[in-house]
Structure formats: C-alpha cells, structure tokens
C-alpha cells in the first residue's frame, strides 16, 4: 500500500471517529443527567416534583413547578418583546435595506450573538434593574421578570432575525413580481405574500429563539431575583406580575448545585432533565417546520 493511500485511509478514520465521538459525548451527557436524577424521581416521585409549587430542600420539599413557570413566563415575556423587533429587523434586512445598509446592519445584529451572557447580565443589573425599580409598586425590587424579559429579548434577537431573514430571502422573487404586477404596493406584497410564504421558516426562527431563551442561565441569575416563589402580581393590577421575582430551571441548578448533596443534588439533575426534554421538544419542532418550508419551495413548479 502506498503512503498516499495510508494517509487517505487514516484521515477517513480520524474524521469518522471525531463524528462518532461527538455523538457519544451528547449521549453520555444525557445518560449521566438521567442517571443522576433517578434517585430524585424515585424518592420524591414524578408527580410531586413536576406539580408541587414548593421548593424547600431543607424540609425535603422538591416541587419545581415554580421554576417551570418562571422559565416559561420569562421566555414568554422575551418573545412578546423580542419577536416584533426581530421580525421588523428581518423584514428590513430581507426586503427593504439596500445592499450597503444590509452589509453593515446584518453583522451588527450577528454581533449581539457573540456578546457573553454574563455581560448581558451585567448590563441588566447595572442599567435595567435600577430603571425597573423606579416603577412605584410595593414590593418591586427591580429584579424580576420584566428586567429578565428585556435582557432575554435582546439575547434572542440575532437568532430569530437571521433565521427569519433567511426564510424571507428564500421566498422566490416570482411571488414578489407577481404581486407587484397586480397593483399591490410593496408593503402589501410583504405582508400578504412574502411573510405567509416564509411562514414556517419564520416560526421556526421564533421557536429556536424560545429554545435559546429556555436555556439561558447566567444573565437570568443576575437579573431575575432568584426567589423560589411562584411568580404572581404584586398588587391587584395583573401587569405587576412582570415585576415579580422568579427563578428559572437553569438558575435553580446553577445557584444550588455547589452545596447540594443527596436527594437535593439528584433533584437538581431532575431539573436538568426537565429542561433537557423541553429544549429537545422545542428544537425538534423547529427542525420539523424548517423541513416543511423546504417542501413548499420544491413542490412549487407543477
């Protein structure tokens, strides 16, 4: 066998092993988390953990519903604030911006994805929290869902923007000219033809943003307050819900893992399992939607 063939074969095997290795690592992590959580599921009980509101490790109460609710609430807040902004940016980049503007703006938005999450947290703590504290409501500390939602909305902006923009650009130009030739304005063309045609890709972008939001840890710990309470309005005004402190699933693990032992430690791994499953479901649905979008594109020509 010549040296060239040996090198060829060796490279092939090295690449194969790297690919296999990354799969093994993922599976190993999943297995490890599940294994470590078994004790909690057994001793506390699945129903007790998932549906009880009280988390008091000192008194052997391990309900994570408050954290599930906290994660969902802050994600919801981030979506409400972030999606309109992200879609507006995506539409501007994909449909309106001249090439020069796009060349500057697109990398700028992408840059947001490169900022470490602790920096977002710092910004939230130093700038946003004091601002939120100005809202005059008894019990408002500034830390809580509102500040956390704002920080998170900015953090998911690049994800949603870039995927939605790709979806918008994937809409064939023939749809645009068809619409314009019928006497539609540019704006009508965008809202009635381009966005509906790119819908599944846009929704997929939003769902990936949701996945990113659910997994965010450090910035959340720094601004959400971390009280283990079931978030609820501070006064009779339901909007004060967003001034309530909360704790996320991710925050629960990060805050307590350093001193937890025994069932408590296992319960934190169980929290991780819940998070893991949530994010897998969210990402799988995004992937499914993206594949559906490409189906639509390919069956276009009859």
């Amino acid at each position, binding site marked *: 066998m010549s040296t060239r063939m040996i090198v060829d074969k060796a490279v092939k095997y090295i690449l194969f092993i790297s690919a296999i290795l990354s799969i093994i690592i993922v599976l190993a992590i999943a297995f490890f988390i599940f294994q470590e959580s078994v004790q909690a599921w057994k001793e506390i009980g699945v129903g007790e953990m998932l549906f009880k509101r009280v988390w008091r490790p000192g008194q052997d109460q391990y309900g994570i519903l408050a954290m599930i609710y906290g994660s969902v609430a802050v994600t919801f807040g981030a979506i409400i604030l972030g999606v309109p902004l992200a879609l507006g940016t995506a539409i501007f980049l994909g449909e309106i911006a001249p090439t020069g503007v796009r060349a500057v703006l697109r990398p700028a938005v992408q840059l947001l994805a490169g900022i470490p999450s602790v920096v977002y947290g710092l910004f939230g703590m130093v700038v946003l929290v004091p601002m939120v504290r100005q809202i005059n409501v008894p019990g408002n500390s500034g830390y809580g869902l509102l500040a956390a939602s704002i920080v998170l909305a900015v953090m998911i902006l690049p994800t949603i923007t870039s995927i939605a923009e790709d979806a918008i650009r994937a809409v064939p130009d023939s749809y645009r*000219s*068809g619409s314009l030739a019928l006497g539609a304005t540019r704006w009508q063309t965008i809202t009635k033809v381009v966005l509906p045609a790119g819908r599944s890709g846009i929704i997929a972008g939003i769902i990936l943003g949701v996945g990113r939001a659910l997994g965010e840890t450090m910035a959340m710990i720094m601004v959400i307050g971390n009280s283990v309470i079931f978030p609820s309005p501070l006064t009779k005004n339901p909007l004060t819900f967003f001034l309530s402190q909360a704790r996320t699933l991710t925050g629960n693990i990060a805050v307590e893992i350093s001193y937890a032992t025994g069932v408590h430690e296992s319960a934190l791994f169980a929290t991780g399992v819940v998070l893991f499953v949530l994010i897998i479901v969210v990402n799988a649905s995004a992937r499914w939607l993206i594949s559906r979008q490409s189906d*639509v594109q390919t069956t276009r020509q009859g």
Partner: protein
Amino acid sequence: MNNIKIETINYNLYYGKFHALRDINIKIPEKKVTALIGPSGCGKSSFLRTFNRMNDLIPGASMTGDVLIDDQDLFKIDPVSLRQNVGMVFQKPNPFPKTIFDNIAYGPRVNGLKDHKKLEEIVENSLRSAALWDEVKDDLNKSGLALSGGQQQRLCIARALAVQPSVILMDEPAASLDPIATLKIEDLIHELSQNYTIVIVTHNMQQAGRVSDYTAFFYTDETRTGRLVEFDETKTIFTNPSDQRTEDYITGRFG
C-alpha cells in the same frame, strides 16, 4: 390601423451605463395581439416591462423619451394604479402559495374589495375568461401550486384579469409548457383579444404567426443595444418583410 392603445416616441432604456433599447417608436393598437419577436438579449422583454413599469424595480434602470398609454404620459401615472390597468403574465407560472380562490381574489383584495359575494363573482368570471373554470370549480380551496403547469399559467392569467386591466402583457407565457397546454394558452390569447390589448413576447415564430395581429421585430447589433427593426401586420412581416434582417430571422437563418 385601429385605435392606438400604447405609443412610444424615441424611447430609450438604460441599465446603468448599458444602453438596452435605442429610439423605439411604436404604436400598439387597441384590442389586438401584438407580438414582440427577436433574438435573445434584443431587449424585447425589457421593452414589455416598460408598459407596467416593472423596470422601475431594477436598480440603475433609467429611461428617456415618451411612452403614452391612452394618450397619457405613462411615467406620470402612479405605478400601483398603472399596474392595475396593465396586467402581466410571466414566463414561468407564478401562482402564490395560496388557494385558487385566494390567488384570484388577491388583486381585488389589495385594491380594497372585501365583499365576499363580489369576490366570488370576480373569481368565477375570471376563471371562466381564462378557460379554467370547468377544471377547477370544485377545487377553489385547493392550493394553486397543486395545478399542472398549463393550469397554473391559466390561473395566472385569470388572476391578472381579476383586476380588470385593459392591457395584458405576456412574457413568453408558454415557454415552460408542453405543446397541448401551449395550444390552450394560444386559443385563450385569441379569445381575450376581443376585450383586451395584448402584448406578447415570444421566441416561437410559429406562435407569433398563429396568435398575433401585429408583429414587432427587435434586433441587436454588436453594441448589444436593442432596436426596433420593423413593425407591421403579422402577415406582412411573415410573408413580405421590408427589412432583410427580418426575413433572415423569420426564415431561421439566425437567432
């Protein structure tokens, strides 16, 4: 000649520095089919897109000279309302990924029509005029993309008719269709010319001969700038052209 629907006077078109069309003078008669023929790259499609100002969408495009439609300066008409009067059918069928009904109702809807009864009426009439009604009347809620290529193209014609234009521009409307679907489109063009002014770009000489009343022959020399060589009744162009280049092109000596 009949009434003049569209007239160009010393019309020039530029894409940036590229001179695409030079000094085009033509009078397109009303309620007739006018075919624009010529070799690839001679500017006939660009010329067609002048009439609904689709060239305006191309960055760097500029025009000089006059284009009149119904004796009005075409460049002074708001492009959105111009395009409601001058419909267009594209080379590749481009129905929207919507139902057949919504495809046709699209034009009237963007013009502000909401009354469902009226929309239903328009959809039926447009589909009938496009000779598609009998094939799709039970499937109006099916996606327009589920139709065959020929049906899609007739759907696009119906969609253009729904906004009640007086002119229909067709850019090689049968180029991507099989011979049977092509014949149906040609019959339809003939039918429509009773009520509409039709301008059609085609690469197919026989098609131009079959469907058009008038033919304009475009040609480009080494500078790649398109010029109008000859414009006359189709039978004159095909049997007794006055320019040698027209005769060479028609008889297939080049192009």
